[in-house]
């Protein structure tokens, strides 16, 4: 059988170099990796002739042509190495051995050398092994860019020569003991540009940042003995003007996570004891909250690892920005470092390799999103458990990858969940209150400008409150399987401070309670409430004790647990005392209740009395509304009243005389007697007016007014008769408080009453009784006196006629006046008889209701 062979066309160079390594930064990284694998301690990357060069002027290159010189101090290569390894495409020593020079090898593809093609059109390689001569290899990459199907890559000849130190120096390269110098000439990319005013050096800054991220901050775990240095001598001034974060000249370092250590909550989980155990440490602002050693569930899949995660709350994000110059979200999230070098694109902005955002979108707000956490997963992979797909496509998704990233039981999520429990359930108070969310950007600005330092943050709780919460949630946060826990440490200060604080609070509350009890300020309800709380507290302590007893603990933690036990005892004692107090209080309260009931009965009786008194007072008050109690009058008015009384006294005998004439002479004309009656009636009114002058508004007296007749009678008798009829004892009975409203002249009613009283007085009455009541549809006022009574009762209704003498009260003119007034009021007056209420006469005045 005949055989065929692949041919390697010359164009494979372009495919590997320019096309496969499609990013300048990656190209440089690949070269750095090669240096690392060659046990270099130091790699220097120098950019020369970027400002001023002859790139566009010369066909080939001169000393003024742009270039990158990458120098390392690795073991270097001799001519055999160059021929057999460097020029052997796709050959990688990593494929035959993972560890070399006591380092895990970083390069894996054997294509890194083609990065030089990506970067520049020409390459001069200078190499020297310790004790050997310098080898110089020259490559013009253009020679490989032939479009010919028959030209194979190996057919392109490359020139090389051996050089002395002085010859090397003549070519502008400083001699060296061992290592490799790559002189990449006529650069394909513009690493800087000029905008007419200044040089733009962003690409250089970006390169440094890129390399920083690619360098494991722990420098590949083992030895801190590898350094990358960037230089660009033409740009010293420009570099000096840059912000710290944008400086591009100097050592490439990754210190972000060390800085963050003091600002954030972090969790570190690493393999110990050859990977059979894992130790997890949770720190908050540098203070260890707990650590736990457990049997590893991931051995032997993931033997040698360290996962460090930093939770960034709003403040931490702002501090991140302040320190790194970029927002944490732009910086990236969780990076994977395999054997010391980063695996892109994992963790870069927009890359969700661990599916954090997907999980948050599907799950709850309780999950941390990619933008809330930064960190790294460092894996030292001796067994090649993890394979890199390409320089930009991360790892092969094999079983080990799944053990690392599986959401359900992967290593990463195990660690993340512990952090989540702490920050979401334990430290949630650190976040900004909902109502102040709109102030976030303002706060961020202040932090970044330095106006606000960590101690100023007002939303953070005081340390005591914070500790208490940490304590409460700590057990839940650990969430470890007790069978797998080898050793547990919990910050004993936290427990102790919690106990001390709780104790002080409980003591204070207890002594307050006792003092309140002494002062009788405590209710049964309050005691029951305290008892309930004590029971809850006791239960909680019991739960915590049970939880902690499952773990093997350090001495300090055991001491703290003993404190909890002691504290629980105190709580129980207090509970007992409170229960006794409660019983006492209940007894007292039942006594009080009894006393209260008795008091209520007495209060109710007193209230009734008071109501009665108030009613009486109101009646009196109402009575006062018709006649003022006393009216201040002037001297003139007083004289006027006096004169009226004097003249009245003069007229009075004349009326008596007329009475006797009328009585003895039957021939006197009735008309005359009637007119005399009119005169007498108005004389009475004048007298009444005079007597009321001090009691009432005169104008008011003559006018009609709507009054309650019962009230007015009471008032008139009480207020006015005291002047006119001092020697008569009045009694008014209106048991049912009967009322009768009408529009009457107060003067008319006064005259009516005056006449009745006057007649009684003439019959020598010393008592007058007025009974007011309602009978059927009549309002009745019975007026009776203790005088001699009507001497001739049979005369009946005629006694009210003018001129009819009744041997009661004189001529009878008075009674006629009374009748006229009553009739005008649409009422009726009648004589009931003698000796009805009192021994004298009783007259009844009645009105229809």
């Amino acid at each position, binding site marked *: 059988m005949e055989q065929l062979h692949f041919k390697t066309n010359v164009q494979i160079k372009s495919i590997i170099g320019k096309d496969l390594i499609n990013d300048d930064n990656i190209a440089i990284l690949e070269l750095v990796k090669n240096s690392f694998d060659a046990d270099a301690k130091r790699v220097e990357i120098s950019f020369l002739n970027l400002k001023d060069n002859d790139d566009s002027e010369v066909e080939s290159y001169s000393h003024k042509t742009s270039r990158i010189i990458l120098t390392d101090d690795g073991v270097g290569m001799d001519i055999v190495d160059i021929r057999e390894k460097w020029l052997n495409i796709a050959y990688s020593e990593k494929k035959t051995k993972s560890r070399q020079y006591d380092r895990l090898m970083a390069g894996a593809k054997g294509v890194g050398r083609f990065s030089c093609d990506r970067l520049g059109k020409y390459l001069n390689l200078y190499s020297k092994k310790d004790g050997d001569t310098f080898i110089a290899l020259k490559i013009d990459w253009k020679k490989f860019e032939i479009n010919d199907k028959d030209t194979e890559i190996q057919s392109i000849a490359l020139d090389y020569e051996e050089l002395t130190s002085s010859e090397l120096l003549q070519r502008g390269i400083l001699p060296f003991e061992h290592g490799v110098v790559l002189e990449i000439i006529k650069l394909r990319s513009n690493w800087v540009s000029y905008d007419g005013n200044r040089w733009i050096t962003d690409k250089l800054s970006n390169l440094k940042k890129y390399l920083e991220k690619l360098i494991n901050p722990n420098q590949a775990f083992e030895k801190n003995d590898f350094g990358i240095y960037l230089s660009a001598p033409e740009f010293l001034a420009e570099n000096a003007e840059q912000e710290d974060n944008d400086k591009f000249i100097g050592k490439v370092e990754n210190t972000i996570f060390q800085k963050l250590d003091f600002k954030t909550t972090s969790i570190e989980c690493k393999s110990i004891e050859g990977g059979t155990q894992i130790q997890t440490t949770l720190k908050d602002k540098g203070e260890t909250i707990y650590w736990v050693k457990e049997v590893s569930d991931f051995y032997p899949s993931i033997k040698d690892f360290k996962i460090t995660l930093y939770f960034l709350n709003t403040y931490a994000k702002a501090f991140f920005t302040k320190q790194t110059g970029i927002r944490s979200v732009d910086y990236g999230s969780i990076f994977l470092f395999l054997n010391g070098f980063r695996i892109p694109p994992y963790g870069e902005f927009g890359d969700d390799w661990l599916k954090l955002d997907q999980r948050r979108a599907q799950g709850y707000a309780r999950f941390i999103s990619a933008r809330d956490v930064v960190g790294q997963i460092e894996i030292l992979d001796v067994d090649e458990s993890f394979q890199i797909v390409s320089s930009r496509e991360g790892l092969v998704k094999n079983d080990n990858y799944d053990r690392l990233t599986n959401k359900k039981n992967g290593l990463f999520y195990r660690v993340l969940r512990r952090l989540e429990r702490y920050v979401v359930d334990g430290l949630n108070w650190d976040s900004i209150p909902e109502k102040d969310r709109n102030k976030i950007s303002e706060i961020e600005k202040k932090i970044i400008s330095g106006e606000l330092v960590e101690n100023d943050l007002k939303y953070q709780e005081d340390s005591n409150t914070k500790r208490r919460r940490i304590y409460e949630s700590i057990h839940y946060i650990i969430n470890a399987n007790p069978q797998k826990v080898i050793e547990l440490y919990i910050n004993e200060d936290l427990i102790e401070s919690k106990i001390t604080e709780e104790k002080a609070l409980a003591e204070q509350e207890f002594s307050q309670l006792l003092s309140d009890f002494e002062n009788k300020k405590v209710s049964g309800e309050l005691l029951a409430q305290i008892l309930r709380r004590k029971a809850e507290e006791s239960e909680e302590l019991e739960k915590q004790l049970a939880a902690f007893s499952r773990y093997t603990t350090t001495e300090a933690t055991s001491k703290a647990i003993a404190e909890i036990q002691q504290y629980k005892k105190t709580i129980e004692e207090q509970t007992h005392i409170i229960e006794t107090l409660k019983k006492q209080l209940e007894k007292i309260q039942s006594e009080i209740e009894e006393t209260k009931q008795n008091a209520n009965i007495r209060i109710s009786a007193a209230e009734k009395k008071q109501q009665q008194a108030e009613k009486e007072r109101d009646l009196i008050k109402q009575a006062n509304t018709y006649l003022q109690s006393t009216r201040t009058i002037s001297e003139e008015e007083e004289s006027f009243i006096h004169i009226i009384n004097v003249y009245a006294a003069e007229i009075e005998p004349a009326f008596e005389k007329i009475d006797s004439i009328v009585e003895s002479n039957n021939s006197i004309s009735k008309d005359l007697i009637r007119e005399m009656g009119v005169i007498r009636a108005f004389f009475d009114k004048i007298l009444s007016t005079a007597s009321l002058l001090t009691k009432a508004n005169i104008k*008011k007296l003559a006018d009609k*007014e*709507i009054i*309650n007749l019962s009230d007015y009678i009471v008032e008139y008798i009480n207020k006015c008769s005291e002047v006119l009829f001092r020697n008569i004892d009045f009694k008014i009975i209106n048991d049912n408080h009967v009322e009768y409203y009408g*529009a009457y002249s107060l003067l008319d009613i006064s005259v009516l009453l005056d006449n009745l009283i006057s007649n009684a007085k003439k019959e020598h009455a010393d008592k007058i009784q007025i009974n007011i009541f309602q009978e059927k549809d009549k309002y009745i006022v019975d007026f009776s006196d203790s005088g001699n009574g009507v001497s001739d009762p049979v005369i009946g209704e005629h006694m009210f006629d003018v001129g009819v003498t009744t041997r009661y009260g004189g001529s009878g003119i008075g009674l006629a006046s009374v009748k006229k007034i009553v009739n*005008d009021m649409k009422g009726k007056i009648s004589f009931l008889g003698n000796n009805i209420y009192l021994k004298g006469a009783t007259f009844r005045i009645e009105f229809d209701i």
Partner: protein
Amino acid sequence: MRTHCLIIDDDNQEEYFNTHVQRVLRAEGVEIVPVFVKPTDRKYLKSDHSGLDLDAIVSDCKNLIDTLDISIIVSDCKVATRKDPFTGVDIILALIETHPKIYKILYSATIKDAIKQILSLLPTKAKMEDTDVNTVIRDLAKIAKINDFVSGKGYEQKVIEYFRNPEICYKQHLINVLKECAPDVIFKSCYPPFNGKTLKEIGREIESDTPQGREFQEELIRQTLAYMVAINHE
């Protein structure tokens, strides 16, 4: 002739009216029956005793006018209590609204106060600007319908004078006859415009002084004279 007089006063006027009006006019052949409305009567008290109910008083007066043959109204000015916001003037003005033709006399011991109240209805410059002119005209017309004013209680003279006016006397007599003698007899001939009306309705036409009422009276005289002349011939 027999007619009614409505007296509105808060005091009893029965005896006074009987003595000074009724007896006098009776002697002259006019039987005048007084109808008294006493605004301070308990039936006009508002239920809460806060005052007197003007509407109830006016309503009572109107009922009386409508049911009785009232040819004259006399009213005191002070008819209510001190606290009530109305006087006899208000009652009279309210009656003018519905019965403008009935003769009305207002009397008062303090007639000046009554006149002041009436004058307050007169249009002032400000009132003319603020009030609709029709309202002003109506107010003026109302005032003009109060036929006489008396200072003091002596309204009797004015009442007597009114009935001594022969025109009034004749007209009132005619109305009385029509309304009282055979009120429900239907008029069928002699004066076609009133064909189909009852005598009582014709009485009201005359009372209201309508053109046809006046024409009917003239016609009545002519036909009565013609009838009398015819009898002479017999």
